[in-house]
């Protein structure tokens, strides 16, 4: 290969890449981007679905059943606690379902780019619903009443969701029994920590962590009382300003194929 030949190829395609990169950064290519994603998302859904089925082949159905039962029981426990709190506050007997099903749209997981089965867990998910379905950046993504993550990017026909375990995501939360407020910070892998809990507040092992709610005036953000996870360990040092706790989600993110986006809160 002549050196000048590949240099000219290099310069041409580097220039093209940089032009596209620049145009994409300032949003000029958004319609083209959305169109391309719309065309490619069915193929992605097909391959992701196939791989998800393959990874499920080795799992024990009895354990999966117990996990599902555990989720349902946890949901019941939280609903009951909420009901007691409502009664205490002399509110009416109307039991609210959180989140309301009328506010949800169902979405298929069509990709989990940062994921190697057996080595790492997903940090982001790609969904087959986008702006055309009312999905916006900032909306919460749930499975039953468990928080999965937050929408961080959208195109017309797909959305990018940052999972709660992603190190780039943090939000306010509270514990169920002791109502101690704190900040949930993703740690990568399957880890999360509940940080910034003042020392005077009490934390309990096995206590559930719920979102505190940070919905803005436009209705975007994380609604309150979604399940984030369960406290596994507490780290409290009298010389520190705050105490923290290790939190684990009840959801196995690598096996998710269907989730729900809260489009209207």
């Amino acid at each position, binding site marked *: *290969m002549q*050196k000048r*030949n*590949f*240099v000219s*190829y*290099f310069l*041409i*395609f*580097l220039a*093209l*890449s*940089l*032009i*596209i*990169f*620049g*145009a*994409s*950064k300032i949003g000029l*290519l958004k319609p083209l*981007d959305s169109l*391309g*994603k719309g065309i*490619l998302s069915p*193929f*992605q859904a097909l*391959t*992701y679905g196939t*791989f998800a089925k393959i990874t499920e082949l080795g799992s024990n159905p009895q354990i999966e059943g117990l996990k599902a039962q555990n989720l349902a029981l946890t949901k019941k426990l939280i609903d009951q606690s909420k009901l007691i709190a409502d009664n205490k506050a002399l509110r009416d007997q109307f039991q609210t379902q959180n989140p309301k099903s009328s506010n949800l749209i169902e979405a298929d997981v*069509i*990709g*989990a*780019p*940062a*994921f*190697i*089965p057996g*080595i*790492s*867990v997903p*940090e*982001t998910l*790609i969904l087959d619903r986008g702006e055309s379905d009312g999905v916006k950046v900032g909306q919460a993504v749930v499975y039953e009443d468990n928080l999965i993550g937050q929408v961080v*990017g959208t*195109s017309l026909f*797909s959305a*990018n969701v940052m999972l709660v375990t992603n*190190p780039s995501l943090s939000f306010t939360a509270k514990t169920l029994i002791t109502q101690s407020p704190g900040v949930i910070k993703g740690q*990568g*892998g399957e880890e999360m920590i509940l940080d910034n809990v003042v020392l005077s507040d009490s934390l309990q092992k096995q206590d559930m962590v719920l979102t505190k709610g940070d919905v803005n005036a436009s209705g975007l953000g994380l609604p309150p009382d979604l399940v984030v996870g369960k406290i596994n360990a507490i780290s409290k040092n009298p010389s520190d300003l705050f105490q923290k706790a290790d939190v684990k989600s009840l959801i196995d993110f690598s096996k998710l194929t269907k989730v729900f986006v809260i489009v209207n809160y």
Partner: protein
Amino acid sequence: MKVLAFVLLTIALILEASLITIPFVFLGLLCLLVLSRRNWLFIFAFAFGLVLDLVTFKTLGASSAFFVIFLFLVLLYQSKFEIATNAFVFFASFLGSFGYLLLLGYNNNILLQAILSSIIGLLLFKSVQRFSKSLVI
């Protein structure tokens, strides 16, 4: 060779876009370049990089630019040294994968993934080498 490259990179793209962080497209491009040293691989690097950015919600052009620059560096290196060796493929896969994952903001076991990538890159190189030889025969 172009058909082989297209098929290999398409499979790599499907894997990388749907499921796995390991930069299969990059590894495929590297192996094909080491074996064929053809200019048209720049076109493949550009096109597959764009599609990859599209389906993984990255800024369009980022992967293309990385692939094109890396291929260029490999070609510059090959003008002085031999590149069709296991050692070169292993280290180039490691460095490229590490840089690529770092550049695109992945922060989950990057080092482990880069090591895994270099092993996969080496295996891919040996497989493509055998397959392309059998095609020639």
